């Protein structure tokens, strides 16, 4: 059986014990180097050993518990998805979702970690796997081809754990599919079965991985017994291999970075790519706030998100609403969102709160981040008002995991209004809950909390409109520059004036459009067949942000800050319009 880089067989590539928390194991299978790491939630990641940024080995990176940090430029990649969550050279920006390292399938079973060169066949345990309480031996790496190792293993002899000093045991060998053999040793009445696997590291390198069918009473003596015998086998095999011409190393093809990653992206991202999720849990997390846990339909993880990100939820009544993800880093098996029960509302959150039940399937968008979190601040202040806790809870959990300093101030009407308390209790950082403060006391508390600005301090705020105004005004009064004040509105309370008429030239699309009163730029672009991204369509979320090349913008959104608005270089096409007769947009 010649080795092939396209072999879909699952091989053991590490022992479970090789992967303590916060370690990155350096593995290899069929010529492909692997970075293997266990996240704090126990999940084992098997990734191509190459940061897609500059190709540096991820096995010398830092396992931060839920993200792997490349040693070279500090790019962080999420547990499970290998999606990029943070780029230190662009601390204020959200990395594109497409930046994802190559992953390989991984299963942890019988004390070993298994992987395969591709996902062509599902993992299946070896024959008889359910008949043992498997005990992993010390792996034996050796410089010999897998076929030769396999042939030699058929003649490997050992003693049952209970008869180490008995006369030499009788051996029976039963080859198993792939590079594996079941060996049974009989010494008098004592009997022991073991399975030995050969991991083909490369054409001329292998690892022998053995499992005993029982955990021996004297573990150390049995481990040493096999270690000595396998070492002898290794010495013999390596001597023989050294006499043969060395086989050529396997030549796995490394996928090039995809065209979409290596070129400038198209400006237009189609709207409406949705994925289905099932409501796994629905619960009242606080008075008037319902928690929803949304899980993937199959067992696969959900797409990568960054702290501050939101998803569009498509509701049964046709409405689309945005909700922030509250998750901590690397938690991709489900998203947890918080929904405020609104008695009066038009029916978005009301539908979710009242009619959606556990087990229901909902369509959601991929996560989108218009509220990115910097990780280079010396001080990070998180200010949450009511349901505004949701993005800030995620931020606090990320900062916690990276051991970065922060303080979370959570303003609520009363103790019963504190949402996600069980998650707040787990935070290591400074969490202060301010209960039932009158508006002026909120203002003074915010002022005291912020204090005078100094370099590398950032504040993030999410909550009701008046609270955001207070924070922004207070921060400005205390000398905080606008780029240090990050905010996210739930909605745009401003009355939109859509009375103007003007002309829009789309520079990249070579189109000129007339915008009549009563219609938005976004609507007219869509009427003319353009595919442009949007989400909230009320000037709050930032998804339709567009570069302005010429003309004067009539800003009507709550996403941009004042200096961004004054710069006249960008706008939200869902609500904002023109003061000049003509706008030129980079679309």
């Amino acid at each position: 059986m010649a080795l092939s880089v396209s072999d879909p067989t699952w091989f053991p590539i590490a022992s479970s014990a090789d992967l303590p928390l916060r370690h990155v194991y350096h593995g290899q299978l069929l010529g492909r180097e692997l970075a293997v790491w266990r996240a704090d939630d126990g999940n084992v990641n098997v990734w191509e050993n190459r940061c897609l940024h500059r190709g540096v080995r991820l096995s010398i990176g830092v396992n931060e518990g839920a993200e792997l940090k490349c040693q070279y430029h500090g790019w962080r990649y999420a547990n499970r998805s290998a999606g990029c969550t943070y780029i230190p050279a662009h601390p204020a920006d959200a990395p594109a979702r497409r930046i994802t390292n190559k992953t390989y399938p991984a299963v942890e079973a019988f004390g070993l970690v298994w992987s395969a060169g591709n996902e062509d066949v599902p993992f299946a345990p070896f024959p008889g796997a359910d008949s043992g309480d498997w005990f992993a031996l010390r792996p034996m790496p050796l410089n010999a081809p897998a076929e030769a190792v396999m042939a030699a293993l058929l003649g490997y002899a050992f003693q049952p754990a209970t008869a180490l000093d008995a006369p030499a045991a009788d051996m029976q060998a039963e080859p198993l599919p792939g590079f594996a053999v079941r060996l049974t040793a009989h010494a008098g009445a004592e009997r022991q079965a073991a399975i030995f696997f050969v991991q083909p590291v490369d054409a001329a390198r292998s690892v022998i991985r053995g499992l005993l069918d029982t955990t021996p009473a004297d573990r150390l003596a049995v481990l040493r017994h096999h270690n000595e015998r396998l070492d002898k086998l290794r010495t013999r095999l390596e001597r023989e291999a050294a006499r043969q011409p060395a086989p050529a190393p396997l030549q796995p093809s490394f996928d090039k970075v995809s065209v979409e990653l290596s070129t400038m992206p198209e400006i237009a991202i189609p709207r409406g790519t949705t994925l289905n999720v099932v409501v796994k849990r629905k619960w009242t997390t606080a008075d008037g706030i319902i928690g929803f846990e949304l899980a993937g339909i199959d067992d696969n993880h959900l797409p990568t998100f960054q702290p501050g990100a939101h998803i569009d939820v498509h509701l049964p009544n046709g409405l689309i609403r945005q909700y922030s993800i509250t998750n901590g880093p690397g938690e991709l098996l489900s998203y947890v969102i918080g929904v405020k029960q609104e008695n009066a509302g038009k029916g978005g959150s009301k539908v979710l709160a009242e009619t959606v039940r556990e087990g229901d399937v909902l369509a959601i968008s991929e996560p989108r981040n218009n509220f990115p979190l910097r990780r280079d601040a010396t001080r990070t202040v998180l200010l949450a008002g009511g349901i505004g806790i949701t993005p800030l809870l995620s931020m606090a959990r990320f900062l916690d995991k990276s051991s970065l300093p922060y303080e979370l101030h959570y303003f609520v009407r009363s103790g019963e209004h504190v949402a996600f308390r069980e998650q707040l209790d787990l935070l290591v950082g400074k969490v202060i809950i301010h209960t039932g403060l009158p508006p002026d006391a909120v203002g003074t508390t915010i002022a005291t909390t912020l204090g005078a600005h100094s370099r590398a301090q950032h504040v993030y705020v999410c909550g009701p409109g008046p609270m955001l105004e207070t924070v922004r005004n207070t921060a400005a009064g205390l000398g905080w520059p606008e780029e240090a004040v990050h905010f996210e509105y739930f909605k745009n309370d401003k009355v939109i004036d859509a009375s103007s008429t003007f002309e829009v030239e789309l520079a990249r699309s070579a189109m000129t459009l007339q915008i009549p009163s009563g219609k938005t730029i976004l609507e007219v672009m869509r009427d003319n067949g353009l595919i442009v991204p949007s989400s909230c369509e009320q000037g709050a979320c930032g998804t339709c942000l567009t570069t302005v090349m010429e003309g004067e913008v009539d800003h009507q959104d709550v996403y941009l800050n004042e200096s961004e608005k004054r710069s006249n270089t960008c706008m939200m096409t869902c609500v904002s319009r023109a003061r000049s007769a003509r706008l030129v947009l980079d679309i």
Partner: protein
Amino acid sequence: MTTLYDFELSGNCYKLRLLMSILRVPYDVVPVDFYPGRQHKADWFLKLNPFGQLPVLEDDGLVLRDSGAILAYLARKYDPSGLWFPTDPATLADVLKWHAVADDITATSSAARLNLGMFYDFDLEKVQQGAHRIFRIMDEHLWFGEQQGRDWLCAPAHPTTADIACFPYVMLSEEGGISRQDYPAIRRWTDRVRRVPGFVVMSGIFPAGRAAE
């Protein structure tokens, strides 16, 4: 007054910088241009160390040579806990055994690095194979140590100068074309060394992340 005659890229000098950082010993540095200047063979340096080798440490007028001997000196003098260089006979013998292994690692792994990086005339294949032979034994020793709850090269539940002496040229082995892929227990041990409070890096040696809490 402590002065280290130091070459920035020398793993043997780094051993002393590392232990002095851990033990918070302040020191001055006299740079010695080992490569390309070969100042360690200059007359002024040979007066300090007739063997013409780095590092040399001057401490209160005493001139000390040999990185392993200086590690022992620093630990005995500046570590009031006595944990870094224990003197009970069995542990002392164990520590000195690994100091000797550290010299073997220098003769192989460091030699491969000097050959590839600084054009020294060594038989590359031979020194690489020599390093692999040591690393195999070391990996086995550390693997069985993990099975018995021993995190370090020697028996005490605390690192010793043996760990400091062996660490640099293990970590720099890849600069000599010696992969550590086949030595997972060594790789885990290097994580532990890099998490010792007071740990400092040198060129080619990266920090480890925090341990899980």
